């Protein structure tokens, strides 16, 4: 998956995790927890959604790397690349 596809996937999953948020309005560099008031349940659901979409399992200790859209894309690109 290239970065564009990954970004699309991340935004789709984000939209599923928090249907109330307008993902077209997202600032890719800003912390999602502050931007959209996401909590630990949402971050876990994001990790589950990304796993289901890409097969990449993000360990708990790496959650802090997926709290922005850019962070998610980088993480997935890096992990997919190394596997």
């Amino acid at each position: 998956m290239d970065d564009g596809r990954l970004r699309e996937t991340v935004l789709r999953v984000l939209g599923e995790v928090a249907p109330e948020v307008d993902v077209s309005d997202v600032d890719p560099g800003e912390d999602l927890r502050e931007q959209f008031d996401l909590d630990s349940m949402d971050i876990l659901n994001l990790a589950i959604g990304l796993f289901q979409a890409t097969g990449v399992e993000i360990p708990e200790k790496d959650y802090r790397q997926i709290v922005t859209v850019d962070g998610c894309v980088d993480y997935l690109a890096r992990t997919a690349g190394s596997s």
Partner: protein
Amino acid sequence: MAEFRMPALGADMEFGTLIAWHMAVGDHVAKGDVVAEVDTDKSVIDVETFTTGTVEELLVEVGTRVPVGTPLARIREDDSAPGSAPAAGGVAPVETAAAEAPPSPPASVGAGPPGQAHHRASPLARRHAKALGVDLADVTGTGPDGAVTTADVERHAAARDAADAVPAPSEESVAPSQTVVAPSPDLARGTPEAAAAPLSGADRQAALRRAVAASMARSKREIPHYYLSSDIDMSRAVGWLTEHNVSVPVTERLLPAVLLLKATALALRESPDLNGLWEGEAFHRSDAIHLGMAVALRGGGLVAPAIHDADTRSLPELMAALRDLVARARSGRLRSSEMSDPTVTVTSLGDQGVDAVLPVIYPPQVAIVGFGRIRDRAWAVDGLLGVRPVLTASLAADHRVTDGHIGALFLTALDRLLQRPEDL
């Protein structure tokens, strides 16, 4: 014949708008089935029936706004003998007719909720009555001035279930000319209103705010709160959780909140006077532990639906229940039993970064448990200073029901339980 009535989905609800029927005349429904959708202004709730039987008649059209307690449909119970219905039986006893008489049409301006206005009972007792399918007219009140209490309703339901028979004769002596005891003026007035256009997001927001305001103001006005807090060393719980979460697939990971919920439920078993409802000037302990989970809605506002029987569920079951409940709370798909059943509330503001919460009790409950964030703190053990993940647990409880001693025992039990996460 059982009446399916507009339920009170929270102590503050007075009206509801029927949005959709999920049953039609002739359908067979079972207890727990979602049979209607009701807009409480705050949100749309899937309403379950407490009756198993066949739908005889739908009394209210979709789009109609009616007071809580208004009969919406009639359901013929499976085990009710056909001959007992007045029409089929020919000579109907007066009592039965009174108990089963068709409700006055909702257009009767100035009347209370049909079938209820002449029976003194607290809103909670009414809710219990609805939940148990009991007609208040059938219940002998033992509360102040003969008012029907929750205990009366439960006693009546138990006797009825034991007899497995038609409802008992009505008690005409129950406060014949009195109006209801506690409900707000609007409820007593009980005039149905024409359907309004669906509420906008802003309207809903405002309604939700008003509801929170009303119940929190009532809480602060009526409940003498006392507050306790305790710092809990979470090293064992966090360590256990981390280990668990690396050993299972991402879909089976647990959140710290699940350990806190289970420990809270188990600790409440040891302090049962914190678990129950205050109504009719008395505390009614609940055997079941239904944890109301305070869920912040992203647009603002708060709901606290129940996780039923939290003390009996395994951690994975609680996690699944929590995930499901939070998702439905935020998408506005809660069920009526979740709205009306909580016996105590838990609020966790750790994700928002606060250290401790001094919460406000949600009436008619008598306690609320608060959790802050788990943060690293200097912690002395056996004279040695170390760094430990620490959580501040707090309790606000109703001084009419318990004293600080009971509250302290609860927090101590909570601490003890969290030191053995593998046993939760």
